[in-house]
């Protein structure tokens, strides 16, 4: 049972990690918890379904995955950019923290309800053939319970790779340095010659890209509903806070911890308590280490 618990936890952690990376990025650059983030992921999921559908209708099933990916990224990025352009940008510029959070929350609800109108409240899936989970390490009898499907393995690998890519981008590239400068002091960044609006737009675009990929992962793993992304917001927020705000590697660690904790709760027979786990994790970590496990003290 322990093996199964860990494998389920890692898979859940990987999904959370994918959903958290964009949240971590937008927090690092714009310094506010984006409560519309979950819906950006949902938009990615529905766009992925639409993209795959389009490829299917065109009798090009081999293009279903690339079409789903491109559609998910473009749609989520478009919604993120529109939300910033129409609402968030002005509030962020005036440094109205509470108003930004409420506005983001409202944007999330709006997007969710538009999705209900467009796609209906019922769950939808990509109609993928049922896949049999196979042992991860077929040679080791003791770990025969550790089983994942090909898609599940891809999601775990993608989560780790995306974390590394984002980490390298922020820490090692000129673009990342510029983004960190804009995050810390947009006025000074502008005075240094950085075209601040362009960098902000790219940051939202990247956030959207991560949301789109997270949405695609949701679609690949099972059916989605208009609430699917929103339901991930709190555990994702917990992962970001537990890992340490602004720490990308910490986000992966935080997501894995939350994933394993939720998995343990379910396997130990307290399934109805799993939602509480994220909140408990936030409270415990903030009480003991306010900057998060891997965050730097301000």
């Amino acid at each position, binding site marked *: 049972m322990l093996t199964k618990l860990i494998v389920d936890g890692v898979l859940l952690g990987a999904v959370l990690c994918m959903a958290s990376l964009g949240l971590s990025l937008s927090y690092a650059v714009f310094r506010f918890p984006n409560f519309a983030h979950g819906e950006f992921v949902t938009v990615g999921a529905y766009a992925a379904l639409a993209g795959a559908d389009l490829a299917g209708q065109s009798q090009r099933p081999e293009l279903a995955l690339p079409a789903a990916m491109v559609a998910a990224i473009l749609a989520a990025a478009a919604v993120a950019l529109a939300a910033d352009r129409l609402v968030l940008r002005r509030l962020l510029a005036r440094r109205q923290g509470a108003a930004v959070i409420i506005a983001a929350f409202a944007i999330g609800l709006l997007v969710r309800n538009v999705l209900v109108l467009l796609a209906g409240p019922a769950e939808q899936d990509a109609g993928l053939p049922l896949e049999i989970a196979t042992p991860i390490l077929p040679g080791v009898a003791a770990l025969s319970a550790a089983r994942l499907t090909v898609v599940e393995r891809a999601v775990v690998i993608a989560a780790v790779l995306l974390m590394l890519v984002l980490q390298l981008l922020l820490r090692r590239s000129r673009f990342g340095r510029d983004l*960190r400068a804009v995050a810390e002091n947009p006025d000074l960044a*502008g*005075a240094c010659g*950085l075209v601040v609006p362009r960098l902000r737009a790219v940051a939202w675009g990247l956030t959207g890209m991560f949301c789109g990929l997270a949405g695609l992962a949701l679609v690949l793993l099972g059916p989605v509903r208009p609430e699917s992304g929103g339901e991930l917001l709190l555990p994702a927020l917990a992962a970001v806070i537990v890992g340490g705000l602004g720490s990308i590697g910490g986000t992966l660690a935080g997501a894995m911890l939350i994933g394993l904790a939720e998995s343990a709760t379910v396997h130990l027979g307290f399934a109805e308590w799993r939602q509480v786990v994220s909140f408990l994790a936030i409270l415990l970590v903030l009480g003991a280490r306010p900057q998060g496990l891997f965050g730097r003290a301000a």
Partner: protein
Amino acid sequence: MGEALLAVEALRAGYVAGQPVVDDVSVAVGQAELVAVFGPNGAGKSTLAKAVAGTVGRFAGRVRFAGADITGWPPWRIAQAGLAYVPQRDNVFAALTVRENLDLGMAARAGRGGAGVDMVLALFPGLASSLHRRAGVLSGGTRQMVAIGRALRAAPLLLLLDEPTAGLSPLVAGEVMAALGTLKRKLSILLVEQNVSAALTVADRAVLLVDGRVRRDTGAAALRSDPALAQAFLGAEPA
């Protein structure tokens, strides 16, 4: 003298429309000239600097720089045109290393090629040992050197400095002023200062700003030889 490199003409600027902090101010800076703007607290010195750099509202008047009307330009465009602004507070990126701060200055170099880190280290040798430290842990004087060094990486035509010696010990303030004396041989400097005596050691011209308006505008040599005139400026210096 031909056209000045920077010409502020009857500029009115401030934070709230209808409430100008700087009113009808005209200041010119020529090639390789160091102009110091003095004035008591609240005279509008910092606002003037911000208005030239494009970070506060400009309500009326014009700012001309290197032959272009930059009055309505956003800050990054002004920086890329070769006008490097170093604010008084929060003028380094605390979370970035000194090296990253310095390299970031290249963002404004536009077509000018920029300057190497060596050039900054030649001016401020003390920075060499701190290149990999985060700027947030540095002393005020070292931060100021990082901020000026970052501005220089863009090979600017004009350096616009807001109180670079504020909060510094006399020794470090003297070091910063000496560096400005070296720099003005190659570029123009508009310096906003409270420390009149320190700035007069390097200034070519001095402007006295009171209540958002220019009270006096005179050559620094005249100031040094006319005690009464000097008194008008020194009177603005905090005790």
